[in-house]
């Protein structure tokens, strides 16, 4: 009798713990959703006055309010650069909130890698030129197409180049390569490498973790420190993988892979079934947090 009673009591306690855990999880999800709604609202509200500041600065820069002295032009340029930095941080804040809530939207379509990189090269080159860096983009014209979101791939590459530009010494080289993933025929591999100070060996595994950049020296003053976390979430949402390595001659090498486009992917993209915008993939927060 005593054993049966003890078993029943244990079962009741386990049930109570389970219910408590479920209630806590539900509370956590609701809190994330509340935070997400607030940050989305705040981002929108911040962007509006920033839009006015940006517009009037560009009007001044373009001489529409009258001629500026050389010194005034320099001041306006500094203000514009900082307004753009603020805009980018607001963008990161929105993205990281969506990523934490599992709400990143990725719109998959066929991306032909070689012409895609060719189109993107002028943008990446202008970023490197700003710091007198030499950008080299290499792609194999016979590369397979990938299944991904062209805007999201661009977002990842731009962020990786921004990092390289930030840390690489002036005059050094930044390389972007797209090639077949050795030993993984179903993936294409993208590589961005620089000749900067590199990531300490002990941090290679964790640089993509949430808040790593915000809590480690060397990245804090330049932004929110969530860029690599966002990159990881974007790549993962496209069924790829991202990782960092020490460059062979120093510097940092970041690689990410994306799945090769296959004809069966194309069935979901045909006009009969709806356009690419219909193919939304939300990231699975439980799998990454």
């Amino acid at each position: 009798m005593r054993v049966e009673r003890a078993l029943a009591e244990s079962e009741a306690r386990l049930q109570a713990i389970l219910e408590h855990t479920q209630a806590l999880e539900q509370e956590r999800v609701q809190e994330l959703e509340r935070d997400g709604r607030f940050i989305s609202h705040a981002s929108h509200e911040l962007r509006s006055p920033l839009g006015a500041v940006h517009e009037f600065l560009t009007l001044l820069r373009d001489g529409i309010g009258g001629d500026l002295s050389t010194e005034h032009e320099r001041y306006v340029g500094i203000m514009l650069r900082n307004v753009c930095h603020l805009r980018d941080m607001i963008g990161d804040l929105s993205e990281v909130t969506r990523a934490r809530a599992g709400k990143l939207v990725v719109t998959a379509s066929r991306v032909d890698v070689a012409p895609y990189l060719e189109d993107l090269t002028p943008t990446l080159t202008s970023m490197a030129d700003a710091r007198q860096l030499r950008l080299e983009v290499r792609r194999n014209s016979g590369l397979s197409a990938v299944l991904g979101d062209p805007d999201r791939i661009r977002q990842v590459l731009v962020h990786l180049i921004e990092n390289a530009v930030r840390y690489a010494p002036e005059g050094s080289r930044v390389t972007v390569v797209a090639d077949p993933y050795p030993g993984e025929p179903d993936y294409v591999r993208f590589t961005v490498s620089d000749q900067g100070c590199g990531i300490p060996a002990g941090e290679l595994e964790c640089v993509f973790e949430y808040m790593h950049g915000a809590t480690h020296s060397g990245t804090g003053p330049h932004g929110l420190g969530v860029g690599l976390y966002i990159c990881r979430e974007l790549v993962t949402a496209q069924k790829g993988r991202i990782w960092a390595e020490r460059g062979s001659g120093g510097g940092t090498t970041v690689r990410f892979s994306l799945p090769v486009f296959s004809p069966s992917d194309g069935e979901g993209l045909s006009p009969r079934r709806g356009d690419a915008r219909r193919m939304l993939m939300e990231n699975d927060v439980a799998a990454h947090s």
Partner: protein
Amino acid sequence: MTAKRKILVIEDDHDQRLGMRLRLAASGYDVAEAVDGVDALGAARRENPDLILLDLGLPGEDGYTVIANLRAIDITRSTPIVVISGRDPRTDGARARDAGADAFLQKPWDDDDLLRTIREALGVEPLGPQEALK
């Protein structure tokens, strides 16, 4: 002489409206303004714009309703509508297009993007500032 194209700016914030007006006028466009959805319908009927720039967060009716109302009257049934908003281009941009907008730009907007989008929507080159003064 070619007539200047007219753009109706629907934006409740005075500073942003003024910034857009100055930029568009300097780029060779005539500009009309409205501050909310009701004002927008009146301005559309009065001004017969070639293109509409629309904010989503308006007092009273929101931008989506304004798009629907503009699409419901003959004079703006097929007038290009470009939404300029601080909201998310992936979710709100898709919703705006579904409602009948032609393009979506996020604030703070890039002037080159704005002017290129307008040119594409109009299918013509705008008058240059010098010609606009004639």
